[in-house]
């Protein structure tokens, strides 16, 4: 279980997180929604230790993440970044097998390559893609390679940062289906950040809405449409008028 308690984070005078409280149960898929610049990514990066919160605690299975041994802690995670974040200088298969080629999970090169090709196949890419460079792939293919990299070491927890941003509706559907299938298949705990409501409905077990630095509403995805929360309602329906200011 991942638990955030009263997490605060500010950048100068910009208070991004102002007391975030959120629980993600093991084996469930939590989707965090909210407008641009509301701190969704900061939330996720705080859990991974990429950003240090100013105050509050974040625990993973009861253990404070700031006190955990970094290597073994990070080995439990996989992450799909918004832009893919593939390493330009490495061919696709080495991107996918990056974690399997160094550190505590190191395997022989041939085995790492085989696993990479199998993961690429899992996300719908042909083995021929393995030897291409990331720059030779389309945006959708890069996202899928990022997804293959995120699941390569079969992590317990997978984070997805804006998995469908910049993709056409069909490719977005493909990525959403893949995420759902993989999370169910691996029994992983998932946390996704998005403002794509189609993704929310396809991926989520539970939804949390972040606004003004706090979790405005959280609950099962099935309850989302009838939650009666004016912030959530405005966001879901994409209305310009409501409690959330359109100009921020």
């Amino acid at each position, binding site marked *: 279980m991942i638990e955030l308690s009263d997490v605060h984070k500010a950048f100068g005078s910009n208070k991004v997180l102002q007391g975030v409280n959120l629980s993600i149960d093991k084996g469930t898929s939590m989707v965090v929604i909210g407008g641009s610049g509301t701190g969704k990514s900061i939330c996720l*990066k705080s859990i*991974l*230790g*990429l950003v240090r919160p100013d105050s509050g605690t974040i625990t993973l299975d009861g253990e404070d993440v700031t006190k955990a041994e*970094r*290597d073994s802690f*990070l*080995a439990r*995670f*996989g*992450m799909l*970044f*918004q*832009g893919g*974040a*593939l*390493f*330009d200088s490495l061919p696709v298969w080495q991107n996918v097998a*990056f*974690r399997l080629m*160094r*550190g*505590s*999970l190191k395997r022989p090169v041939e085995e790492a390559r085989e696993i990479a090709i199998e993961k690429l196949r899992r996300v719908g890419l042909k083995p021929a893609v393995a030897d291409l460079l990331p720059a030779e792939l389309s945006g959708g293919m890069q996202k899928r390679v990022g997804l293959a*990299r995120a699941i390569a070491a079969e992590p317990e927890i997978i984070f997805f940062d804006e998995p469908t941003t910049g993709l056409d509706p069909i490719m977005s559907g493909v990525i959403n289906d893949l995420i759902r299938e993989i999370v169910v298949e691996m029994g992983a705990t998932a946390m996704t950040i998005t403002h794509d409501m189609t993704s929310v409905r396809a991926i989520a077990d539970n939804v949390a809405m972040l606004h003004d630095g706090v979790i405005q509403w959280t609950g099962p995805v099935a309850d989302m449409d009838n939650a009666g929360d004016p912030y959530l309602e405005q966001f879901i329906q994409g209305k310009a008028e409501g409690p959330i200011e359109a100009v921020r």
Partner: protein
Amino acid sequence: MVILSFLAALGRSTLGMLAALGRISIFAGQTIGHIARPPIYLKEIGHSLVNVGYFSLPVVGLTAIFTGGALALQIYSGGARFNAEAVVPQIVAIGMVRELGPVLVGLMIAARVTSSIAAEIATMKVTEQIDALVTLSTHPMKYLTVPRVLAGMVMVPVLVGIGDIIGIMGGYVVGTQSLGFNSATYLKNTVNFIESLDVISSLVKGAVFGFIATLMGCYYGMNTSRGAAGVGRATKGAVEAAAVLILAANFLLTSLFFTI
């Protein structure tokens, strides 16, 4: 009022510069600390050695040969004012080995390697590749900074040595082909004049300049701000800082080697 504003601005920029120097010193200390501790990424080190060393050879060679040739012409025409044309081989040798070789190679490396490192790492930073490295249990300092800085410290002295030889050969070609020097005498005067301290100082300067050039590329790349403008600022800042620090370090090392 104007004087106060001026002094306040001066104070702010001085404090800013000192803070930046402090941050760079901490970054340098962390880099040295990581060099001394495993894991060491040999493949990345090999790649950096080739990139810093082998691919810099053409620019270093061309810079050195033209500088050596021009130096010979200058010393000949300047020396003619007090009948000292004969010292061309000695002054070209000492000028190239002690000063121009290391400094010009250092500046060329700052232009070619520092800029490339800063732009590459800054782009990795703004496209979240550095964050991705962390999530893949790989320390960015060990994976990106250490190989490049090690390559700078190893390959720049080699480039300086090659640059010194090519620069002297540039002077030799000009001296023998257009200034009427005897080939054997030119070479004999050159070899006899250079002392081992000249060569050692040249190579030590190369190692220090290599460290500075690569470190600045990594520092500015790692600390870039967002977007294409951030990458541009990081690249420009890295080259400026590397060039200034190389020239400052050159003065300090020259003082250390030849006046104390």
